[in-house]
């Protein structure tokens, strides 16, 4: 065994200095995480002020969740997310393309960027509370609609499935389109201006430029936005919770998965809530895997693959 005495290794200091983070992560994040998974195999809840369990029940929590309306709530979550995401990505793309377009020369660009980002700074629950008051049957929106003669009697926005879901989607859209715009702007600005100039010389109009150049080149970032948004949407909670008072009304059609989780936590049902968390963990982990693949992609614009293909052919 040979030991190199001459070179001094400082690497262990690096490890020692990052130790505090790992210790606190281990105590405050990892142990609770492991506990959540452990309790998901137990019957463990509180009845009144008496604690029941923990009794080991195997996979029972998982199977009874499958038998419950969990998949319906997953569907609700997906619908609520998609209603918000489609306008969000469309508007964000449009705005991002306009903002970076040098020829448009938008004045006070910085101001608009701040304004569209602002809704994201408000707490989601406060935002939901605001909408709840605005759109209540005797609220200001109904007052306006009635006084200008659009509606004859107050519209019960939150009494209908369509109304509640659109409100949730609209709020999510408002909160997140600014964020997405800024991200996409960064992506578009990363495209070399040479390409744009070349296309212009070739007589490309702005629509062609958008669909043939901008869109394909920001595809990796778009995919990243999509997956990130799905993960965020999976955890949708505060907006529908506050808007429907935790009921997911009407008829539980706006009950999301995390709201379902929360209603188990009302009875401190750690077992069932743990099992649901594990399901969510698995779905998120799969999605995260795709994000990881994408962000670590060494061939973001597909040029290498194209080159390989060309080589094989030739």
């Amino acid at each position, binding site marked *: 065994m040979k030991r190199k005495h001459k070179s001094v290794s400082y690497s262990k*200091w690096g490890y*020692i*200095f990052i*130790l*505090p983070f790992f*210790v*606190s992560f281990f105590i405050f994040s990892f142990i609770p995480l492991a506990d959540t998974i452990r309790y998901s195999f137990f019957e463990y*809840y*509180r*009845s*009144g*002020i*008496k604690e*029941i369990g923990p009794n080991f029940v195997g996979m029972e929590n998982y199977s009874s969740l499958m038998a*419950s*309306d969990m998949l319906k709530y997953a569907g609700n979550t997906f619908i609520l997310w998609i209603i918000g995401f489609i306008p969000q990505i469309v508007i964000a793309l449009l705005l991002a393309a306009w903002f970076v377009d040098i020829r448009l020369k938008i004045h006070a660009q910085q101001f608009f960027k701040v304004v569209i980002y602002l809704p994201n700074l408000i707490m989601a629950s406060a935002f939901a509370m605001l909408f709840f*008051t605005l759109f*209540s*049957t*005797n*609220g200001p929106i109904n007052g306006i609609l009635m006084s200008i003669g659009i509606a004859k009697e*107050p519209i*019960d926005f939150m*009494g*209908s*499935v369509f109304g509640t879901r659109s409100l949730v989607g609209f709020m999510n859209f408002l909160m997140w389109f600014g964020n997405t715009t800024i991200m996409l702007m960064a992506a578009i600005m990363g495209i070399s201006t040479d390409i744009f100039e070349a296309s212009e010389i070739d007589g490309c109009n702005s629509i062609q430029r958008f669909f043939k150049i901008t869109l394909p080149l920001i595809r990796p970032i778009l995919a990243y936005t999509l997956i990130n948004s799905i993960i965020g949407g999976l955890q949708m909670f505060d907006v529908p919770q506050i808007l429907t008072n*935790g*009921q997911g*009304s*009407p*008829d*539980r059609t706006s009950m999301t998965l995390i709201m*379902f989780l929360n*209603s*188990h936590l*009302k*009875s401190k*049902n750690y077992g*069932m809530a743990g099992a649901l968390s594990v399901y969510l963990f698995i779905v998120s982990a799969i999605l995260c895997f795709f994000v990881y693949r994408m962000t670590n992609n060494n061939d973001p614009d597909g040029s290498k693959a194209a080159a390989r293909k060309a080589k094989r052919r030739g």
Partner: protein
Amino acid sequence: MKKKYISMVLMAALAAGTLAGCGDKSSGTGGDKNSSTQKDSSESSKGGDNATAEGKVINVYSWNDEFMKRVTAVYPEVKETSSDKTVTTLKDGTEIHWIINPNQDGVYQQKLDEALLNQASAAADDKVDIFLSETDYVNKYTDAEADVAMPLTDLGINPDTDLSDQYDFTKVTASDVNGVQRGSTWQCCPGLLVYRRDIAKEVFGTDDPVKVGEKVKDWDTMKTTAEELKAKGYYTFSSYADTFRLYGNSISAPWVSPGETVIKVDQKIMDWINTSKEWLDAGYLNKTVKGQWNDDWNKAMGSKSKVFAFLFPAWGIDFTLKPNWDGKDGAWAVTNPPQEYNWGGSYVHACTGTDNPTIVKDIILSVTGNKDNLLKISKDYLDFTNTKSGMQEAAKDNKSYASEFLGGQNSFEYFTPVAENIEIAPLSAYDQGCVELIQNAFSDYFQGQVDFDKAKSNFETAIKERYPETTEVQWP
């Protein structure tokens, strides 16, 4: 080598810094005896001289300042309350700490439950000494097996003699399955019908409580009256939830019988569902008001609203109706309800493990068992208080109990007979969830979102989520 030591020291400092936060917390919740005794000694030297063997801090858990106001108003030992209303100092230097958590979304009960679970290991001055509960969940805390609320006899209070003037149903409510009383209340919540005088004059030609009382004396008469009101464009009540307590608090069997895990929905509840649907479709209730305690409901109590009446106990008139009414005083009046009922009531419990049993006993007796004090509370806060003889006097004493808000009417004249006829519904520890969830589940049905069977199954789903131990829901 030297470098190594320096970096070791830096490391230790860094680690200490990051862990300092949790260190503080654990010593605070655990038993930091040093600091608390230090605080005590400094306080007792400053405040009082007659130090007792008991603790110096009384922790009171509650969901609003109702109890604090009553204690500071009538408990003779009170010296002063701090400006932020969190600490009341007694004459002997003992401090009452008011720990207030809102009732919404079960926050109060969560916090209280946590504190109760830690009661045994908490330091003397951190122990819960008094906590309050509402009729909806009093049963959860008076449970004999859980034994978190002390039997009054253990405190030295004999309910038969010391609290003999209390209404019997309040004593039954605060007792466990073996009939041991584990709490006491200063208020008693018989409900009345509160109506708008101007609407009564317009529709019936009179606002006399006796004559209006005739028109609302039972449900059949009430329906004819509702038709009359509708013809003039008025709603009888604001929402379907308004009538719930009249039905829900007169159920014949508890939601869940002791020792069982089956939820039994009473016929009375089904009656409420059917009547509410019928009334709502007939236009006797305001369709835009969905349930209670929301903005629309509050607005229905305003002067622009078309709602004729509300069903409220004394606290509802003072605490809910009055702040929401934007017109002049004297616009409302009370009369007999279509059915006697009780709604709410805050129970005071001594917590097992308290280190201040003498003062706790003193406070309970003074606020809930002393007739003079109770009459003072009735005068100052319009509570209908828990003294049979006192309330009978109040009913006759039109001079001192006339309410300006009710146009000079003495509401106790109407409250007292209701209170004497109340038969409290049998309670269970599941009442709060059942009451809340059945109203939520059927609110979709009332609004035509789901059919009757779907509403039933939604209730079943919701109740099994809230109470995982329930196995079955039986419908009548």
